[in-house]
C-alpha cells in the first residue's frame, strides 16, 4: 500500500529484532471476544486515479453550472489561486498545533497576524485564533457573557441567523439558561429596540444581535450596546458576512463580536470548514475561549510568538476551562490571513464597494418586475429581502430549470414572510447574470399569471 513505507522484508526484520513471529502477537492484549474476526466490509482499495474519478463523479451530481444568488451565512466571493498555492505548502498543511514554539514560528506569526486583522476589521481590542465557525462563536460568546456577568439570561434578536440561533439554544439548554426573543420591526427589518429594552433586565447576561442580520439589514449596534449596558448586560454582535466590514462601520461598541470569516477567502464547500472568530475588549481576554498567540522574546531578545494564556484552555484547566475547544480551524484562519494580505486595504474597500453596487443594481432591476419590491427599509450591504407576488419556492422551482438558484425563501424560517426571499449579490455576479435573473424571473412571474396590473398597484403602495 503506497501510504505504508515498509516492505514485507523490513517488517520481517523488525519482528525478528522484537523476537516475535508475527504482528498478531502484538495484539494479544485484546481479549478474544473484543476482536473483529473478519475483514472490514467497506469499499476500496482505490488507486489515486480511481479516487479522483469517484469524487469527480460525485461533483457532477451537484449544482456545478448553476448561477446561485444564495447567501444566508455562506458567501461566494473572489478567491485567489496565489493564496491557495501557498496554503498547500506542506509546512503549513501538515504541521501540528504550535505548542512547540521554536519550530512553529511560521504558524504562530501567521496567527498573530490573523488576530491583528480581525481586530482591525471588527474595531475590537483582541481577537482569538479561531473558533469552529460563526454559529459556535456566537454560542461561545454568549457563554462568555454568562461567565463575565454571572447572570443566566439571554435576549436574542429574532433576526439572528436561524441556524446560529439553534446552536445557541443547544448550548443554553444544557446550562439551564433562560432565552428571550426580541422581534424585528416589520418596516425596517431591524431588531426592535423597544422590545430589547423591555426584555433586558438585571438577570440578562447578553443581548445578541447580528449585523447585517439574517434579513440583510444593518443594525444600529451602538444603540443596542447602550440598551444592553443599561441593566448591566453585554452586547454580543454576530457577523455572518465579514465582507460587510469593508464598507459598513464595525461593531466597535459591542462587548463581544462573534464573526464568521468564511467570506474572506474560504470556499463555500457545502458548509465547512469555515473560521469563526471571537473579538472583544482586552479586559475580557481571560474569559475568552480558544487559542491566542502572543508576542514573546527569547534569551537573546529575539522576537517570536507563543500560544499564551493557555490556562484558560482544556488541557490545563480541565473541569474549569472556559470551553472544551481544542482543535480549532487554524488552516482556515491562515487562508483568511493570506487572502487579506493579498486583497489588502485598497482591495477590501474596492471589493466591498462592488458588492454594494451590484446588490443595488440587482434590486433596481428586480423592482422593475411586477409586484417585486424590497421588503425592508433598513440599510443593506449585499443581501436584501425582496417581496414577490407569488411563493418564492414556486418561482425558484421555475428558475432552477434555467439553471439559476434564486433567493432563499424566508417562509420556512419566518412563517409570516412566505412571499419573501433573501437575495445575495456579490462582486462575482456579472451584470449579465443579474440581468438574466431579472429576465428569467419576469418570465416566470408571467407564466404564474402576474400581469402588468399588479405592477401599477405595487408602485402605488410605495
Amino acid at each position, binding site marked *: 500500500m503506497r501510504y505504508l513505507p515498509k516492505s514485507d522484508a523490513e517488517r520481517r526484520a523488525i519482528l525478528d529484532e522484537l523476537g516475535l513471529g508475527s504482528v498478531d502477537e502484538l495484539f494479544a492484549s485484546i481479549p478474544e471476544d473484543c476482536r473483529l474476526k473478519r475483514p472490514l466490509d467497506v469499499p476500496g482499495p482505490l488507486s489515486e486515479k480511481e479516487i479522483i474519478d469517484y*469524487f469527480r463523479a460525485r461533483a457532477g451530481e451537484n449544482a456545478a453550472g448553476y448561477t446561485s444568488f444564495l447567501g444566508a451565512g455562506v458567501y461566494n466571493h473572489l478567491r485567489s489561486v496565489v493564496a491557495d498555492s501557498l496554503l498547500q505548502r506542506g509546512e503549513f498543511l501538515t504541521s501540528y498545533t504550535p505548542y512547540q514554539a521554536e519550530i512553529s514560528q511560521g504558524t504562530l506569526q501567521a496567527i498573530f497576524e490573523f488576530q491583528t486583522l480581525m481586530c482591525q476589521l471588527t474595531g475590537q481590542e483582541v481577537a482569538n485564533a479561531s473558533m469552529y465557525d460563526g454559529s459556535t462563536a456566537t454560542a461561545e460568546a454568549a457563554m462568555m457573557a454568562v461567565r463575565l456577568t454571572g447572570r443566566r439570561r439571554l435576549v436574542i434578536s429574532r433576526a439572528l441567523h436561524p441556524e446560529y440561533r439553534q446552536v445557541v439554544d443547544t448550548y443554553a439548554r444544557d446550562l439551564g439558561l433562560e432565552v428571550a426573543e426580541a422581534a424585528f420591526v416589520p418596516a425596517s427589518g431591524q431588531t426592535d429596540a423597544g422590545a430589547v429594552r423591555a426584555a433586558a433586565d438585571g438577570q440578562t447576561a447578553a443581548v445578541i444581535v447580528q449585523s447585517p442580520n439574517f434579513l440583510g439589514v444593518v443594525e444600529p449596534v451602538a444603540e443596542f450596546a447602550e440598551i444592553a449596558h443599561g441593566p448591566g448586560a453585554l452586547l454580543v454582535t454576530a457577523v455572518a458576512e465579514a465582507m460587510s466590514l469593508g464598507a459598513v462601520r464595525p461593531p466597535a461598541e459591542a462587548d463581544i463580536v462573534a464573526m464568521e470569516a468564511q467570506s474572506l477567502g474560504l470556499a463555500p464547500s457545502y458548509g465547512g470548514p469555515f473560521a469563526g472568530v471571537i473579538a472583544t475588549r482586552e479586559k475580557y481576554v481571560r474569559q475568552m475561549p480558544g487559542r491566542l498567540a502572543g508576542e514573546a522574546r527569547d534569551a537573546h531578545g529575539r522576537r517570536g510568538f507563543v500560544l499564551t494564556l493557555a490556562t484558560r484552555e482544556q488541557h490545563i484547566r480541565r473541569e474549569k476551562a472556559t470551553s472544551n475547544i481544542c482543535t480549532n480551524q487554524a488552516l482556515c484562519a491562515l487562508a483568511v490571513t493570506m487572502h487579506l494580505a493579498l486583497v489588502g486595504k485598497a482591495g477590501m474597500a474596492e471589493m466591498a464597494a462592488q458588492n454594494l453596487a451590484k446588490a443595488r443594481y440587482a434590486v433596481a432591476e428586480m423592482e422593475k418586475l411586477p409586484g417585486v419590491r424590497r421588503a425592508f427599509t433598513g440599510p443593506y450591504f449585499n443581501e436584501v429581502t425582496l417581496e414577490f407576488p407569488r411563493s418564492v419556492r414556486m418561482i425558484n422551482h421555475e428558475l432552477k430549470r434555467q439553471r439559476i438558484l434564486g433567493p432563499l425563501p424566508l417562509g420556512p424560517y419566518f412563517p409570516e414572510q412566505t412571499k419573501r426571499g433573501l437575495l445575495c449579490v456579490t462582486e462575482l455576479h456579472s451584470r449579465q447574470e443579474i440581468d438574466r435573473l431579472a429576465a428569467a424571473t419576469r418570465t416566470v412571474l408571467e407564466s404564474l399569471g402576474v400581469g402588468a396590473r399588479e405592477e401599477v398597484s405595487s408602485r402605488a403602495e410605495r
Partner: protein
Amino acid sequence: MPQPPAQPMSKATKHVSINEGLLFERSAAGKRGMELPPLDVPAVDAVRELGAEYARGPVEGFPEVSEIEMIRHFTRLSTWNYAIDLGMYPLGSCTMKYNPRVNEHVARLEGLATEHPLQPVELSQGCLRILRTLERFLLEVTGMDAITLEPCAGAQGEYAGIAMIRAYLASQGNPRKRVLVPDSAHGTNPATAVTAGYEVLNIRSDATGRIDLSHLAEYANEDVAALMVTNPNTLGTFEKDIARAAEVLHARGALLYMDGANMNALAGVARPGDFGVDVMHMNLHKTFSTPHGGGGPGAGPVAVKQHLEPFLPIPVLAEKADGTLGWDSNRPKTIGRLRAFYGNFGVLVRALAYALAYGPGMVEATRDAVLNANYIRKKLEDVYDLPYKQPCMHEVVFSDARQKKNGVNTMDIAKRLIDYGFHPYTTAFPLIVPGALMIEPTESESRLELDLFVEAMRSIAAEAAESPELVKTAPHSTRVGRLDEVAAARKPVLRWTPRDVPAR
C-alpha cells in the same frame, strides 16, 4: 558552554532561514496584491446608500503589500515550521500520519468546493452521497449503529456524545449528576462533561495504568450518567476489562462513552461497538489522516448504538423513499443543532478519500502503527524508564526518572530532540506518569526514520548523563530559543499596533 553531541546528528544540520517581519511592518501605502475585474454596473456612494452613521472608509491598518511580497512573506514563514512532510512527529495520541495529497485535490474539485449548503437537496446528491458513504465506512469500523458527521472536532463530538447520554437518561426520567473520568484522560473529557452540565469525578487507574474496576464499581451509583474512557488508554494499553466495565455501568443504568482518539490502534482489529461502548467519537484529523494545518480544522463524528439514535443532533442524513438523500430535522428528541449547516464537509471529503484508498486494507495501517510503537519501545527501554511494563499498542509512554537524577526533565529532552531534526513527543501527559514522554510514531514512518529517531533519543540520553547543560538549554539550532512564556502571559501582546517597533 554547550558541547557538541557525543554522536554526529544524522537527520539534521543547520540551515539559513530568512527573517521576515509582520505583514504590517512590510506594508507601504498604495501597494496591493490583488486586482478585481472592473465594475460592470453603476458605482454607488456608500455614504449615500448606507447613511453616514453606517458607512466606513478603508480598514485602518490593513496590509498593503504586492503579490510577490505576499508570496515571499508566507513562503518564508512556512520555512520556520516543522511538518509531517519533513519528518516524524512522535506526539502521543495525536496520530500524526501522512496527509495524502490526492485528498487535497478532490476537496478542491469544482462541484464540491463550490457547493452552497442551502442549495436544493436535489442538486446536492453528490455531496450527500459522499457523506453517506463515509458514514457507512465509519459505522463498519466502529461497530456502531448510527452516526453524525456534524461535530467539527473531537471536543465538539465529545460534547454531543455526553449531551446525547444526558438526553437519553432524561427521557428515562433522570439525567443524573455525574460523569466519571479516568485520571489518565485527555483534558477535553472533563471540560466537556462540565459544558454538558455534569459534575466530574476522577477515578483511579490501577497499578497497570488501566481503569481500576473495583473503584469503578464503588463509584458507579445511580447518580452516575456515564464513564468516559479512551481505549487503548493514554498509556497505549488496551483496557482489557472494558467489556466488564460496560456491564457494571449498564447494570446501574449508566452508559459507556469512548474517546476514539486512539482508534489508530484498533481500526480493522477491534470495534468499540462490539465491546460495550454506547457512544463514541472519532478524530478524523487523527485516524483518518485529515491535515492538522497548524491546529485544525478537524472533524469529530459521533457514532452511537440504536438506543441513542433518536437523540442525534440535527440535521440527520436520511434516505428518502425514492432512494435520494436529504436532511431530516424533524427529530423531536434531538439534542439540537451543534453548528450551522452540516459539519466540516471539506474535511469529511478528505477522510473519505483516505478511507477509500485503503478499503479493507486499513487493518494493515493499524498493524504497522502498533509494530512501529513496539519497535521504538524495544530500542529505548534500556535508556529510558518505562513505568508501566504491560504491552503497549500504537503508543508507548516512558518517564524522565533516570534523566531527572541529573536535573534533566522531559521538557528538556523534548527541546533537545528539536536539534536532532524531530518534533518533540508529548511531554508531561498523561498526568498519571510524572515526567512523561508519550511517543506515537504512526504507520507512516519508515524503518529509516524510526532508526533516526531512536538514534537521536539514545544520543540525548547519553548527553543527559554526560553533558546535561547541553540538554537543559536546548534547543540550540532554531531561529529563536526558548521564549519567555511567563512574560508573555503577564503582559499579553496579542496584536500588532502601529506604535510597535520590530525586533532585530
